[in-house]
C-alpha cells in the first residue's frame, strides 16, 4: 500500500493512471450511448433526452436552490449554536423525506392488493420518523447547552 502510494505520488504515474481511467471512462460512455442509439425503437432517444435534461434541472434548478435558500435564511435568523443543530436536523429529515414524499405520492396507486406494494400509510410513517429526528436533535441541543453552562459555571482551569 505504501509503495502504491509512493508510486501514485509520482506525478508521471499519476498522470498515466488518470489518462487510463479517463480513456476507459470515455469508451464506456460511448458504448452505452451507442447502444442507446442503436436500440432506438425501444429506448426512444428523443424522449430520453428530455428525461435526462429534466433530471439535471430538477436538481440544479429546484432542489439545490431551495436547499441553499433555506441555509441562507437559517444563517441570517438563527444563532450559531442553535443553527448547527437545526441544520443537522434538517439535513437528516430532508434526506429521509426525499424518499418519503415519493412513496406518499404513489401510495395506493397500484392495481392489486396481492402485489403487497405501497400499502402502508407513508405519510404517517414519515411524520413518525421526522418526529424522532426532531426529538433527537432537540435532545442533542439541550445536552450541548447544559454542558457549556456547566463549563462556564466552573472557574477556568488556568487561574
Amino acid at each position, binding site marked *: 500500500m505504501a509503495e502504491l502510494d509512493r508510486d501514485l505520488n509520482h506525478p508521471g504515474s499519476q498522470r498515466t493512471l488518470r489518462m487510463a*481511467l479517463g480513456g476507459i471512462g470515455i469508451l464506456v460512455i460511448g458504448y452505452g450511448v451507442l447502444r442507446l442509439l442503436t436500440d432506438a425503437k425501444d429506448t426512444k432517444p428523443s424522449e430520453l433526452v428530455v428525461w435526462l435534461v429534466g433530471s439535471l434541472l430538477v436538481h440544479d434548478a429546484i432542489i439545490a436552490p431551495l436547499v441553499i435558500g433555506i441555509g441562507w435564511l437559517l444563517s441570517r435568523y438563527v444563532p450559531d449554536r442553535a443553527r448547527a443543530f437545526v441544520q443537522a436536523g434538517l439535513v437528516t429529515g430532508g434526506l429521509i423525506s426525499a*424518499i418519503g414524499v415519493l412513496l406518499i405520492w404513489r401510495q395506493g396507486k397500484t392495481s392489486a392488493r396481492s402485489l403487497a406494494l405501497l400499502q402502508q400509510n407513508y405519510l404517517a410513517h414519515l411524520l413518525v*420518523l421526522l418526529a424522532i429526528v426532531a426529538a433527537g436533535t432537540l435532545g442533542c441541543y439541550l445536552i450541548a447547552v447544559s454542558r457549556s453552562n456547566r463549563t462556564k459555571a466552573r472557574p477556568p482551569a488556568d487561574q
Partner: protein
Amino acid sequence: MVPTGQTERVQLPTFVRQRPPFWPEFSSPLRSPAVTARVGRVLGIAFGLCFVTGLLSHYQYAPWHWLPIPAAPYWGYRLTQGVHVITGISCIPLLLLKLWSVFHRLFVWPPVRSVAHSLERGSVAILVSASVFQLITGLFNILQFYPWHWGFLRVHYWMSWVVIGSLLLHIAIQLPAIREGLADRVWRSGDSPGPSRRGVLIAGGAGIAVVTATTIGQVIPVLQPIGLLAARQPRKGPQGVPVNRTAAAAQVVRLAQSPQYRLTVDGPHLLFELKLAELEALPISQTSLPIACVEGWSVQADWHGPRLLDLVHRVGGNSSSKVSLISLEHGAYSRSSLTGSQLEHALLATHLNGQRLDLDHGYPVRLIAPDRAGVLQTKWITKIEVR
C-alpha cells in the same frame, strides 16, 4: 483532460475575468474537498456495487449457453438483487448530499475558462444527469410507476454504462482533488460553535442510515416491522408471498381454471399431455426456496410439486437438455428456459406454504428453481419443451 497548467495562464479580457454583480456567489465553510471526497468515496463504492449486481441481474435474462446460471448458492440472486435495490435507494440521499457539497461550483466565474474546462464541466453534467435519472427511474420501477414510453429494462441497462463511464472519467479528472480532500481532516479544533463539517457528515450519515434501515425490510423479513419506508411488505402477499403480476393482469383467470387445461410435455422422444388430475397425482417433492424479484423484494417459502427433471426424463431428455416453460399468458415473460444444475433442482410447484397454489401465484402450476430471478419463475405453465 488535465485542465490546469498552460490554459490557466491565458489572459482573458478583464470583463470576463471579473464576476458580474448579478452572478450568484455563495460559499459555506461546510463545503470543502474534505467532505466531498469522503461522501464521494462512499457514493463511488455504492455505484460500483449497483453496477456489478446489475450486470449479474442482467445476465439472468440472457445467459451464455456454456455458462448457465448455477443453482448454488440458492440465495445468490436474492442477495445480489437485494444489495442492488437497497444500495440504489440509499444512493438517492447520498447523491443529494454529494451534490450539495459541490453546488457552489456550478456558479464558478467565468463559467468556461478554456476548452479543457468546458469538457470537464460537460462530463460533470453527464454524470449528474445520468445518475439522478438512473436512481429516480430505478425507484419508479420498484414502485411500478412508468410515466414514459421507453422500455425501462434496456434504458436502465445501457444507461448504467453511461453512469459508470462518466464516474470513471470524473475520478480521472478529480483525482488530485480527491487525494487532497481525503488527506485533509474533517474535524478542526478551531471550528466555530456553528455548523461543522463533521456535523454535516453525521447528520447526512444518519439520514442515509434511516433510509436504509426502513427500506431493507423488503429483503430481510426480520426487519419488516421497522420497514416504515419499504415499498413492499413481502409477508402481506397471498400465502405469505407477494406477486408482481396478477392472474387478472396476465389475462389468464379463465384459462388457468378451465376444465380444458392440459400440461403438454414435448421432448425429443415423446410428447404427452397431462390433465389437471394427472398432474396433481404425480409423485411430489418438497423444497424451501426464495422468490427473489428484480425489484429487490424477496421471501423464502415452502414449495411442493413434481420434480421438473422427472418429466424431462420421461420424454427422453436429461439435465443437460434445454428446457423451456411456456405460460398461458402472452407477453415478455410468457416463457423462460433453464438447464444444468438449476434444472436438476427445479420443481413444478403446485403448493405454496402448505396450500394449493394461489391463482395469482401461477395456479395450476409454476416453476420454482434456485438462484433465479422472480420473473423467470414462469407461472401458469401450459407447455414444457425439452430440446
